[in-house]
């Protein structure tokens, strides 16, 4: 990750901002340049809802280099409250607590660091939603 590359995408990563095609009423995250369905390239920026439901998840024990110091961690397929599907890393959750249907919410967290001299990279992860009731295990 280079500083300029990190800086270019910060808005989308910090605030979960997606690209929206008005013709198709479809949101894209990661943000796209062109609508998949109609080819519209005048996509608008829209903030995604910060809460959703965990469709399914996995537990990564073999991480890429960037996350070598932080494994193991969970990756989830999440359906946000507006129906948008996204992949995201999960945090503040142990393996035993994960289950399908878990309510989750977006939080701003550190993703990884270059090293002691380099930049700190931030982004959005999801944690079990506070203050909402969850389906029984």
């Amino acid at each position, binding site marked *: 990750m280079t500083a300029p590359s990190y800086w270019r995408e910060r808005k989308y990563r910090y*605030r979960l901002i997606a690209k929206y095609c008005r013709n198709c009423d479809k949101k894209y995250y990661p943000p796209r340049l062109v609508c998949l369905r109609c080819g519209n390239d005048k996509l608008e920026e829209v903030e995604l809802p910060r809460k959703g439901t965990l469709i399914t998840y996995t537990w990564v024990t073999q991480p890429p280099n960037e996350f070598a110091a*932080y494994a193991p961690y969970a990756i989830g397929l999440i359906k946000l409250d507006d129906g948008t599907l996204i992949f995201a890393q999960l945090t*503040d959750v142990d393996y035993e607590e994960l289950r399908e249907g878990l309510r989750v919410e977006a939080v*701003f*967290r*550190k993703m990884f660091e270059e090293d002691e001299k380099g930049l700190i990279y*931030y982004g959005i992860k999801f944690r079990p939603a*506070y203050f909402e009731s969850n389906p029984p295990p």
Partner: protein
Amino acid sequence: MKPLHQVSIIGYGGYIPIRRIKAKEIARIWGKSDKALPLEEKSVAAYDEDTATMSVEAAYNALKRAKISPSLIGAVYVGTESKIYTVKPTSTVVAEALGITPNVLASDYEFACKAGTEAMQTCIGLVSSGMVKSALAIGADIARGRPGDELEYTAGAAAAAFLLAKAGEFEDIAILEGSFSYVTDTPDFWRREGQIYPMHYYRFTGEPAYFHHIREAASNLMKELNLKPSDFKYAVFHQPNSKFPQEVATSLGFKSEQYKPGLLVPLIGNSYAASSLLGFAAVLDIAKPGDRILLASFGSGAGSDAFSFVVCDGIESKRNLAPLIMDYVSKRKYVDYAIYAKHRNKYNK
């Protein structure tokens, strides 16, 4: 000190990390007795949390209560002694993450545990002068406890954020009556560049530092505003441990029902720049319109900022727009020393 135009709090919020470690567990590692420990337990920030991430969540809650567009915020100041970079402000990351950039002032404040209230004083000046419409003051810290040192029991983590504006422009939560700041060069606690853990001078941090500065700030504030302790419903002080805030409150003439509601340190530890602000937020969570609240911070080095706020009607409708401090306090997961050390990366240093 009174601003020319009245200033109020229009939004507030806090954040406490979910993990906790019991003081008994830390004592176990170092072979110390678990009697006479400075508190019950403290909060532990996860490996993927830092001052920026905690500030964002606290500020997010403050913005939810404020109900204004981020574009109306003209300044973001994070008061901390655990900046994310030594050079490059935490506030820029926080401002970006909340959509407040680019028409904004931003900087990090440092004055040990009173950095957050220093930021608050500046915000008061900025909004009162009309330079900005609203200003965000945040106190946040992930305190570093040297392994085996007595501060390791209390070095906690949390963030508290306050959004201020000219009184009457937006829905007011609490109006500022006045403030008083008392600062001297007192070397009770410091950290040199390149050092990971701070140095402290044990009992010297007590009477000549903590007690003297808070007493001076608070009593001078009350004198200036012609108020006495019984005029206040609540009194919130900086909380380095369970004993100090109770002692200073009593010595100033406050009773336990006034200072107990804001006393969070037994359960979450000393969150340094967030400490007194978090206690203040906890009190706002239960206060009624018309209640008068004293807030007195303390920062080593040393100084104290004392404020008097009066709660407004706006608190009733705004309070429940974001999680309460006690909601965060009661959400907890205990970890042992090994997991604590892993999250705080204590074995690499």
